[in-house]
């Protein structure tokens, strides 16, 4: 357990605020989706906020992340704005990708968000490549790769971590293990008790932590970040988390035993951290209530912005396929 005295109040309240922002964003997204306001599909990270925020808090602003199909939280934790993110879910011109990417593809390179990704495991080599770029350029930035337990069973996991380890790249491989790949429990398709144990195969540090404890995640990832920044190479951190929703919004998740959701609710990272903030006297109930209300307002405003924003012009369907000679390359 983290010591009470070592964190600033500002830092602790920021963790709380970021988790609440993500939770309310996801709840709003679910509401809009259920009302039929969003096209396509969304994958929600409700329940995983402790892992997502704790890991991002260990990064500097100039550091990089890659994310996944369940990526809203990762991007918000790295600084993405709720209004532009929600506008992207709506397919609007004001969204991060001008409506061309949607829920699974929020990117803001200026914020170090190299992209959520619709292909499971595709972000892992991209993150390793970003870390290699830092090594080649000689900058001091690290790249944190968020991925899920199922991505750990893609070949890209092995190929990328092997190279990152061989070349001591400044990368942190953060596996958010929520126990399920769509409907398949991880233990049914994987022999080891943890995924972090695989770090041994690459001779790098590997650690499994409680992803519902935001400070425990922060501590584990901070250690990995410091190691990467020093030039000592990558680490694998596995956070045990709960995916409250099914794979996608609307998936009844009948494949899961009811105990899973009971455990999930008993391990709500926001409820746990809120209680701890008050118990340790790091914050008052009034302070936290103020944050919750502020986040409510922010999300309401973001939703209003997204809804009121225009769709892209139809002609934009043909732009930005190429950066040079686009028109000719699109024509033939």
């Amino acid at each position, binding site marked *: 357990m983290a010591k009470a005295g070592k964190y600033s109040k500002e830092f602790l309240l920021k963790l709380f605020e970021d988790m609440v922002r993500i939770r309310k964003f996801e709840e709003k997204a679910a509401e809009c989706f259920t009302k039929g306001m969003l096209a396509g599909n969304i994958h929600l990270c409700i329940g995983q906020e402790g892992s997502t925020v704790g890991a991002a808090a260990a990064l500097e602003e100039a550091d990089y992340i890659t994310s996944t199909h369940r990526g809203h939280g990762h991007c918000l934790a790295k600084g993405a704005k709720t209004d532009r993110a929600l506008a992207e879910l709506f397919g609007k011109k004001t969204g991060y990708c*001008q409506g061309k990417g949607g829920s699974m593809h929020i990117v803001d390179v200026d914020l170090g968000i190299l992209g959520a990704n619709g292909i499971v495991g595709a972000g892992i080599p991209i993150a390793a490549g*970003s870390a290699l770029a830092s090594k080649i350029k000689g900058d001091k930035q690290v790249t944190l790769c968020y991925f899920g337990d199922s991505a750990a069973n893609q070949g890209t996991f092995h190929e990328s971590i092997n190279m990152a380890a061989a070349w001591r790249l400044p990368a942190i491989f953060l596996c958010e293990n929520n126990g399920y790949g769509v409907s398949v429990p991880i233990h049914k398709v994987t022999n080891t008790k943890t995924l972090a144990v695989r770090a041994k195969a690459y001779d790098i540090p590997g650690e499994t932590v409680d992803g519902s404890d935001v400070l425990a995640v922060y501590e584990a990832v901070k250690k990995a970040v410091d190691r990467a920044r020093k030039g000592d190479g990558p680490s694998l951190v596995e956070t045990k988390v709960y995916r409250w929703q099914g794979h996608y919004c609307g998936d009844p998740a009948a494949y899961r035993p009811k105990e899973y959701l009971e455990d999930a609710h008993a391990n709500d990272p926001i409820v746990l951290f809120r209680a701890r903030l008050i118990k340790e006297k790091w914050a008052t109930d009034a302070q936290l209530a103020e944050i919750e209300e502020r986040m409510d307002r922010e999300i309401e405003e973001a939703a209003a912005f997204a809804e009121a924003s225009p769709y892209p012009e139809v002609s934009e369907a043909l732009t*930005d396929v190429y950066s040079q*000679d686009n028109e000719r390359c*699109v024509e*033939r």
Partner: protein
Amino acid sequence: MSKKLSVSKAIREGLHEEMVRDPNVVVLGEDMADMGSVFGITQGFLEEFGPWRVLDTPISESGFTGMAVGMAMRGLRPVVEWMYNDFITCCLDPVMNQAAKLRYMTGGQLTLPIVFRAPMGAGRRNAGQHSQCLESLFMHIPGLKLVCPSTAADAKGLLKAAIRDDDPVVFLEHKLLYAKKEDVPEGEYIIELGKADVKRPGKDLTIITWSRQVYFALEAADKLAAEGYDVEVLDLRSLVPLDFQAIRESVCKTHNVLVLEEGVKRGGVGAELGAQIMDELFDELDSPVGRVAGANVVSPFSPPLEDAVFPQVDEIVSAVKQQLNR
């Protein structure tokens, strides 16, 4: 002024010039550093540019190709080598779903200046998994550019243009052209992507082709000339972007056109070009668009079998004569 260089040395020179010019150009792939690549393209690069600009990767095509995408996002200009273009099967996701799509999917936020170099083609007795022509596969993917040079001079100038291009470019080099020695201009020059080149002017029929088949077409044209046929050979050089203006000019002159490709006929580039020509130049045509292409089979190992399944000069000669119906 010009000098004699093999195609592989011309490619090496183009890559070398770009690495000297721009420190963001980094090469990675299997056997690139210590060995200097299996076809000798990067010989001496490790000593000159060091291990962080000339990377020997493990045999992990999916991993290192995906890493090139991440490197490009961070402002580098990676030049990736796949030892054979057939190995695309091991890394199609980073090429097709990542490099090709991410500019569009991010609303133009990302530029991904990556060159994917790969030897291609049949005739080297490498059998079915090391002999394919996959142009139509790459051409089908929006977001990729595709360059297939034939001559040493073109290979150098086009590679330099591909490296400077801000989009992902697949650059296919025919293995059986590497050793061919040809004139290459002295000094710095670039050949713009999307500019076809008339390798032989003629007035009776246009053979549209690229890569190694350019030489087959030229040889066939010589034979046909002896029989009174005047054939034009148009080397596309890049398939995306496509120089349709050059095709239009040539077809409007000869009124007969045949697309010649080494790759398999079914779903091939010839089908696409034929359709475009029929759509837009139908009234100019005196004969249906001809196609000479590889058989719809796996490239066989045994030399007499292999030679029978991709276009040879005599087959081109008789196809032209049949098309001109003389």
